[in-house]
């Protein structure tokens, strides 16, 4: 540290007063435990949810359903009230809440809401056989709350629940009785839902409506549509059509990554595109030839991808000093 300050003084980058200020700062600065505390809070919320579940399971006979439901509802309400009390005014731009506990209170409230709903449904069959309704209500609520409180974690929960609702609506019999998920309506719905999420992400970005949410939409949308397209490619006929869609989506991801400087989208585009391309090539090869060709293919193609990722800025025409 002294060496660095001395060098900065020698090069006349800072003056002596600034050097003294920096030395005093280094001597008195507090040790940051921001990430440790944040991780502990997240872990606490998850463990709390799990603990409540176990507590209910183990004491169901002695405590009584009414008391447990009232307790969960009270805690859920308390968390919602705390989050509402410490909220920031709604705007379409990103809102930073100075009170980080409020974010965790909202997350806790949402987890408790799901536990409460599941409990009531299991015990009293509140929604009867309308499982779709039981998933749609929290999905709609969480998406509304995510926009109202500007919370990406709750948005992720909402998107996941909306996906569950769509799955139950499209193919309830298969999911609930056989757990068979490779049927055509379900996979096609997943592809469409994924594309819809990507479109929503693009719209959020374009119209600057909670622009920072677009990353969550892209992440869920790209993963879901890629996985559904790969499932369709592996399981259904019309392989060429699905393969073309994978190539299209991969290209979109790579070029959007270039525009938005998102490495994650680039990785998704390359990874899923590679899996799809490899499957399509080997599916059309004779088995004996595929075995011999496979070794050469994987070593050279993976080498090619490493070269691509290593020279990604040059290949995509991004200036070297710019962060992609």
């Amino acid at each position, binding site marked *: 540290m002294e060496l660095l300050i001395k060098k900065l003084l020698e*090069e006349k980058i800072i003056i002596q007063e*600034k050097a003294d200020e920096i030395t005093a700062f280094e001597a008195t600065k507090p040790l940051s435990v921001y990430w440790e505390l944040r991780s502990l809070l997240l872990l606490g919320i998850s463990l709390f949810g799990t603990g409540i579940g176990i507590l209910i399971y183990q004491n169901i006979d002695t405590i009584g359903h009414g008391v447990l439901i009232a307790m969960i509802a009270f805690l859920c309400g308390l968390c919602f009230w705390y989050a509402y009390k410490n909220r920031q005014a709604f705007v379409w731009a990103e809102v930073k809440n100075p009170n980080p506990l409020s974010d965790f209170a909202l997350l806790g409230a949402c987890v408790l809401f799901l536990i409460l709903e599941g409990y009531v449904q299991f015990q009293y069959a509140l929604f009867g056989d309308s499982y779709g309704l039981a998933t749609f209500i929290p999905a709609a609520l969480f998406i509304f709350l995510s926009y109202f409180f500007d919370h990406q974690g709750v948005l992720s929960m909402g998107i996941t629940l909306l996906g569950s609702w769509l799955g139950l609506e499209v193919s309830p019999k298969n999911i609930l009785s056989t757990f068979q998920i490779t049927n055509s309506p379900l996979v096609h719905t997943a592809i469409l839902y994924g594309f819809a999420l990507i479109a929503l992400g693009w719209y959020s970005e374009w119209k600057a409506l909670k622009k920072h949410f677009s990353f969550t939409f892209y992440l869920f949308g790209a993963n879901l549509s890629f996985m559904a397209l790969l499932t369709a490619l592996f399981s259904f006929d019309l392989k060429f059509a699905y393969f073309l869609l994978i190539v299209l989506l991969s290209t979109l991801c790579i070029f959007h990554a270039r525009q938005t400087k998102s*490495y994650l989208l680039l990785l998704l585009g390359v990874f899923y595109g590679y899996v799809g391309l490899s499957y399509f090539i080997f599916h059309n090869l004779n088995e004996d030839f595929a075995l011999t060709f496979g*070794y050469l293919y994987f070593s050279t193609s*993976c080498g090619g991808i490493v070269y691509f*990722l290593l020279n990604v800025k040059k290949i995509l025409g991004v200036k070297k000093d710019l962060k992609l």
Partner: protein
Amino acid sequence: MKAYIESWVANIKFKSILRAWFNNNLLNQDQLEHGNALYKEDFYKPNWYIWIGLFIFTNIAVSFSTTTFLAFLGIFDENKGLSISLFIFSIGLFLVLERFIKVKKLYRSGIDNALLYLALGYFYAAVLLYFEFNFASYFYPLLLCIILLPACVRYAEPLVTIFCVCSFFRIYFFSSIYISIG
């Protein structure tokens, strides 16, 4: 002694300190830029996501290349032949790693990590195969420690260091069983 340019590694640390001072309003933009210009380094350090991609695909590429060569040689059933081949691959990987660090200026880029793990793994497997796994149980961690120690010194790679320390404690554990004091 060290594979990476040491002054550049130190400069990474200096630049992060300068950035922290800038974030705490102790330096202005101009001072930060001058400071960064003073502590130049030109390592290739990719973003975390690209790191994952480079690491996975390097592993697959090297593993399949090795398997292809071994298949061509047709020595899967002979322990000695396989061992010598793995030893040669290991040396080859170390040479490639050194070359990449020197020419491509890689530093914790996913590629150098993968090459180092594979080279060390091949070397360890080559020795074990050559002696047909005919060792006393304490020899395995001892051998691992002997192989990893020079790599720790030369590359200062965190995971290799963790394994080296773990193998050392494993030796200590075995020695406490076999050697009694008093």
